[in-house]
C-alpha cells in the first residue's frame, strides 16, 4: 500500500501556548484512522492543519509525497457543526464543493444526487436545512465532503452533537459508506468506543503540550456491526485507551472547572 499522508515533526504554537509538539504519523492509502484524547490535546488543531485551515508552526505534511499548502479539493472536511447554508436546499448545499471548483455539470449533479442517496437522503434533495433533523443535517455534511471526490476525508467530531442512538446509527452508516469507496479517513472524536469501532488505527493524544502518546492498531474483523461493541476484545481495547488518557482527562476536566 502507498503512503497517503506523511506527517513529520508537526508542531503548533498559539502565541505562548504550545498546542502540538512533534507529531509523526504515516497514513496508508485507504486507512481509517481516529484521533482521540482529552479536550485541549490539539486533536482538532491537528486535523485543521491537515485540512490546510490552520498553518503549522513547524514540521511538514506530505500528501502523495507532495507538501500541502492551504485547503484543496483533494481533502474533504466534515465539520462538527454541520455548517450548512440555510438559504440553499440539500442538493445545492451538497454541490457547494464542485461549485467552488467551477465544475457543476450534469455529471457532478448526478454524482451528488447518488451520494445523497448513499447517505440516506434520497427524496430530500429540495428540502432546506431547517426542515431536517440533526442526524440528517450531518448526512448532508458528509455528502458535501464526498461530493468533491476527495482522496482523504477529514472528520471533526461529526457526531458529537447527536443523541446516543442517532450517533450509533450514523457510525454504522459511515462504515457502510466507507466500505464502498475505502477512502483514507482521519476521524477526530472524544468518544473512545466510537474511535475503536470505526478505525484501523487509533491515535491517542495527550495534552500539555498536545502530542501523540500511542498508536493503537485495531484488528477487529470487518465489516463490523454494532454487536462488536460488546465483544471482550473490543472492551479490552477501549479499556486500554481509557486507562492511558484517564489522568489527562481528569486534569482537563478540573482545568475547565477551575
Amino acid at each position: 500500500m502507498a503512503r497517503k499522508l506523511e506527517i513529520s515533526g508537526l508542531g503548533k504554537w498559539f502565541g505562548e501556548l504550545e498546542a502540538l509538539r512533534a507529531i509523526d504519523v504515516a497514513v496508508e492509502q485507504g486507512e481509517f484512522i481516529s484521533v482521540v484524547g482529552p479536550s485541549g490535546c490539539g486533536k482538532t488543531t491537528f486535523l485543521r492543519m491537515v485540512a490546510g485551515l490552520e498553518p503549522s508552526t513547524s514540521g511538514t505534511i506530505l500528501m502523495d509525497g507532495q507538501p500541502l499548502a492551504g485547503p484543496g479539493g483533494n481533502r474533504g472536511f466534515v465539520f462538527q457543526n454541520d455548517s450548512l447554508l440555510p438559504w440553499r436546499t440539500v442538493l445545492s448545499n451538497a454541490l457547494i464543493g464542485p461549485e467552488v471548483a467551477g465544475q457543476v455539470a450534469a455529471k457532478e449533479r448526478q454524482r451528488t444526487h447518488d451520494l445523497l442517496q448513499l447517505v440516506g437522503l434520497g427524496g430530500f434533495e429540495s428540502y432546506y436545512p431547517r426542515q431536517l433533523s440533526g442526524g440528517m443535517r450531518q448526512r448532508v455534511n458528509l455528502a458535501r465532503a464526498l461530493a468533491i471526490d476527495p482522496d482523504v476525508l477529514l472528520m471533526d467530531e461529526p457526531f458529537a452533537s447527536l443523541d446516543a442512538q442517532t450517533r450509533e446509527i450514523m457510525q454504522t452508516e459511515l462504515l457502510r459508506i466507507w466500505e464502498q469507496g475505502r477512502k483514507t479517513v482521519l476521524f477526530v472524536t472524544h468518544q473512545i468506543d466510537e474511535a475503536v469501532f470505526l478505525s484501523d488505527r487509533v491515535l491517542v493524544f495527550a495534552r500539555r503540550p498536545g502530542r501523540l502518546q500511542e498508536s493503537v492498531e485495531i484488528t477487529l474483523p470487518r465489516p463490523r456491526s454494532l454487536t462488536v461493541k460488546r465483544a471482550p476484545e473490543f472492551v479490552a481495547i477501549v479499556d486500554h485507551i481509557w486507562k492511558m488518557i484517564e489522568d489527562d482527562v481528569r486534569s482537563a476536566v478540573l482545568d475547565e472547572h477551575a
Partner: protein
Amino acid sequence: MLERLRQNYLAGFLSVTGGLLFWELVSRLLVANPLFLAAPSQIVQAIYALTLTGEMGRHLSISAIEFAIGYVIASVIGIGVGFGMASSVRFKQAMQPWISGLYATPTIALAPLFILWLGIGIWSKVLVVIFLVLFPVTINTEAGLRTTSERLIEMLRSFGASRSQIFFKVSLPSALPFILAGLKLGIGRGLIGVVVAELFGSRAGLGRLISQSADAFNMPELFAGVIVLAVAGIAMTAGFGWLEKRLVPWTKD
C-alpha cells in the same frame, strides 16, 4: 380558511371599526366643530373630492417622486458604503464617526437649509430623504456583512474558495436579511422626511396639502393628506414584508 381569517383578524377589525365609530360620534356630537376635528365620513368625502379634481393625484405624485428618487439614491449609496466599511477596516474607521453622528442627529431640522440651497422644488426634499434613509441602510448592510458566520466562511474555505467566492456565496446572502431590514426602516423615515420637508416649503406634495389645509382650517382635507400618507406607509411596509418572504425565506419559519 374563513375560520382562520376570523381568528387572526377579527379582533383587529373590531377594534378599528369601533375606533372609527367612536371618532365619528365624538366629532359629530361632542366636538361638533369642523374647525377642530373632522369625522371619518368627512375625510372620506374629502379624499373623494380631492381625487376627482385631480388635486390628490398631483400632490401624491410629487411626494412619490421625491420619495422614490431619494430612496433609490440612498439605498444605492448606503449599500455601497456598507460594503466598503465591511471590507476595509480603514474605511470603516474613517466613516464610523460620520455615520454615528449623522444617524443620531435629527437631520430633518436641516430641511430649511436644504430648501435655501436647492430651492423650493423637489430636490431639497430628495436630499432630506437621502439623509434619513442613508444611515439605517448603511449601518445594517455593514452589520449584516460583519456578522456573517465564521463557521460558514471556514466551510467554504475548506473547499479552497477564493475571497470573491466567499463573498458571493456566503457573506452576501447572509447579509441580505439585514440589508432588507435596513431598507424597511428607511421607508418610514423617508416618508417622514418628504412630508416634513414639504411642510417647510414647497409648491406641491402631501406635506403641502396638509399645511395649506391647516392654514385654511380645512380639517377634512388635512386629515385626507395624513390618511393617504399612512396608507402609503402601510402598503409599502407590507409590500416589503412580502418581498422579504420571497427573498429570504430561511429567516422565518
